[in-house]
């Protein structure tokens, strides 16, 4: 069974008298271990799709099953729990807490998961070490470079061992060299078996993924798999 199953998902917004159809009956399946890029011009509905997949937004109609759980019917609090357990977010603007140091930022999902303090610290330190920031744990976001901040964000996204890593324009605020570093990190995480979904409008970034979904006017315009697609890299054990 697929990790992500969208069935005829629609999302409409009311903007004054006008109804905006951000998503129009989108159906989509993503398997565990896939590395997917979602592309599309602004206003195409790709952000809405990402928000729905990330359980930040609920669809107006349609069904969404994540990890065999129907999440499209869940309320706010249940969604918060799903986000905490199943999803790691990486944002264009990093979205770190400005007053907290790297360690505390990475600890945040664990705090909401109710992990005891010592264990929390240990897991967060491991996560920071895995993105190469073991020596920056007590730096605050404004004391770090953009690349370092995005690594902290990646560490935070990974710390709860989520089913999906969801990245929204992860290189948008980085110079090309640092951007390349982050994308290399993503490739590495993909090779380790993580499911990654990257939303971007840059072909260069999308190239790293093995499957590219193009969205236009709230519909999936194309769904192409790269020749580099290697379903074999999915660890058999993790397929339900």
């Amino acid at each position, binding site marked *: 069974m697929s990790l992500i199953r969208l069935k005829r998902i629609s999302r409409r917004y009311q903007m004054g008298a006008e109804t905006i159809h951000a998503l129009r009956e989108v159906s989509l399946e993503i398997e565990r271990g896939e590395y997917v890029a979602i592309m599309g011009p602004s206003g195409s509905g790709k952000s809405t799709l990402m928000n729905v997949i*990330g359980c*930040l937004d609920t669809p107006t109609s349609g069904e969404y099953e994540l990890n065999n759980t129907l999440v499209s019917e869940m309320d706010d609090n249940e969604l918060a729990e799903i*986000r905490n357990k199943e999803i790691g977010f990486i944002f264009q603007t990093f979205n*770190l807490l400005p007053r907290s140091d790297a360690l505390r930022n990475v600890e*945040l999902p664990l*705090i909401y998961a109710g992990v005891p303090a010592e264990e929390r610290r240990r897991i967060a330190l491991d996560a920071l070490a895995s993105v190469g920031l073991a020596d920056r744990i007590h730096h605050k976001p404004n004391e770090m470079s953009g690349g370092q901040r995005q690594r902290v964000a990646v560490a935070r996204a990974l710390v709860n061992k989520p089913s999906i890593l969801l990245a929204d324009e992860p290189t948008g605020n980085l110079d090309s060299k640092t951007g390349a570093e982050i994308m290399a990190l993503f490739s590495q995480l993909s090779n380790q078996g993580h499911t990654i979904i990257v939303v971007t409008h840059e072909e260069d970034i999308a190239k790293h993924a093995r499957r590219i979904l193009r969205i236009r006017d709230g519909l999936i315009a194309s769904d192409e798999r790269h020749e580099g697609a290697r379903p074999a890299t999915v660890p058999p054990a993790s397929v339900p």
Partner: protein
Amino acid sequence: MNLLAEVKEGLSISWEAIRANKMRSALTTLGIVIGVVTVTLMGTAIQGLDRAFLDNISAIGADILYVERFEWFTGSREDWLRMQKRPRITLEQAEQLEGQLTMSRAVAPVASRDRPVRYGRAESASVRIIGSTEQYQYTGGISIAKGRFFSEQEARGGRPVCVIGSEVAENLFRDEPPVGRRIRIDQQSFEIIGVLEKQGSLLGLISLDNQIIVPLPQFTAYFRNNPDVTIQVKVIAVDQIEEAKEELRAVMRRIRGLAPAEPDDFGINQQDQFVQIFHRLGGTIAAIGLFITALSLFVGGIGIMNIMFVSVAERTREIGIRKAVGAKRRTILLQFLIEAACICLLGGCLALAIAWPLTLVMQRFMPAALSPPIVLIALMVSLITGVISGFLPAWRAARMNPVDALRNE
């Protein structure tokens, strides 16, 4: 995530937020500080007033009934004029009463008049002369400092003896011991057999130390032969004072020869009347105080609410981030409630620090002290103000949509 962990997390976040906005937090809490200072001072003042009053009326024993021609507190001028027509309470009536009461421990008829008193060249122009029996030592709320009170035999007549108040002793005898000396009350010579302990005054008006007690026969012989008497009755048990009062009324009506339909032509007074009047007065003072206090707390609370709205708006993105990584509504609500409560509690502590020296100043005027219950009330009030005024902003934060919150710049 359990509640304890959430509270702990909430506390550390609010501490950070308060520290990050020191000036703003200080200004916000000022309203609460003023409110809580008012609460504290008001509470202390009311307690002090209460204590001062009880100290002041302690000369009127709680277990003593005073049978008099007049009631202490009258409703109107008409009542007052009607009372003027009441016949006097005579010594004979007092004697009859004494024989018929079963629920009383002591009965003392008391008559008084102001007279000049001399000892050698020293003179007091006006001293309250009280004529009574030996029972007065039980009903009068007095205690003997030196010497003794007069005996039953002495009270029936015979030797002219007297017991003097501490102020009289001070005025007439500088250094000499008064017991055994003779003084002249209005030309008559009396031997001092006892000196009273210092008593202070009644409600700060009537000195209880500027008095001399003499046996009744001497009083009627020299100072007033047909006095209007007050009968002081000490009841056996203070918790049966109402029953004793009823018995007293029935006996007194019989003695005064009243027909069943006639109203009482005498008053039975007791300390309780003072206390009731005072409580009515105290209740009014407390109500006004409460109103002022509530008003200042209300203003303070609005300040807190205002700044919490600003704080929530400023941290919209932070709320979005927290929600994205798994914070539930309750968690966010609690976080902001705790922040508001912390600001207010800090204000409460600050207020107590300000109020404490002020209560020391108050102590010069009344027996006031910052008592633990008042401290507790002050802290509770500030906490509750914080929670109430923080609720609306916190609720707004908790209900934020994470997508919109994250998009906020």
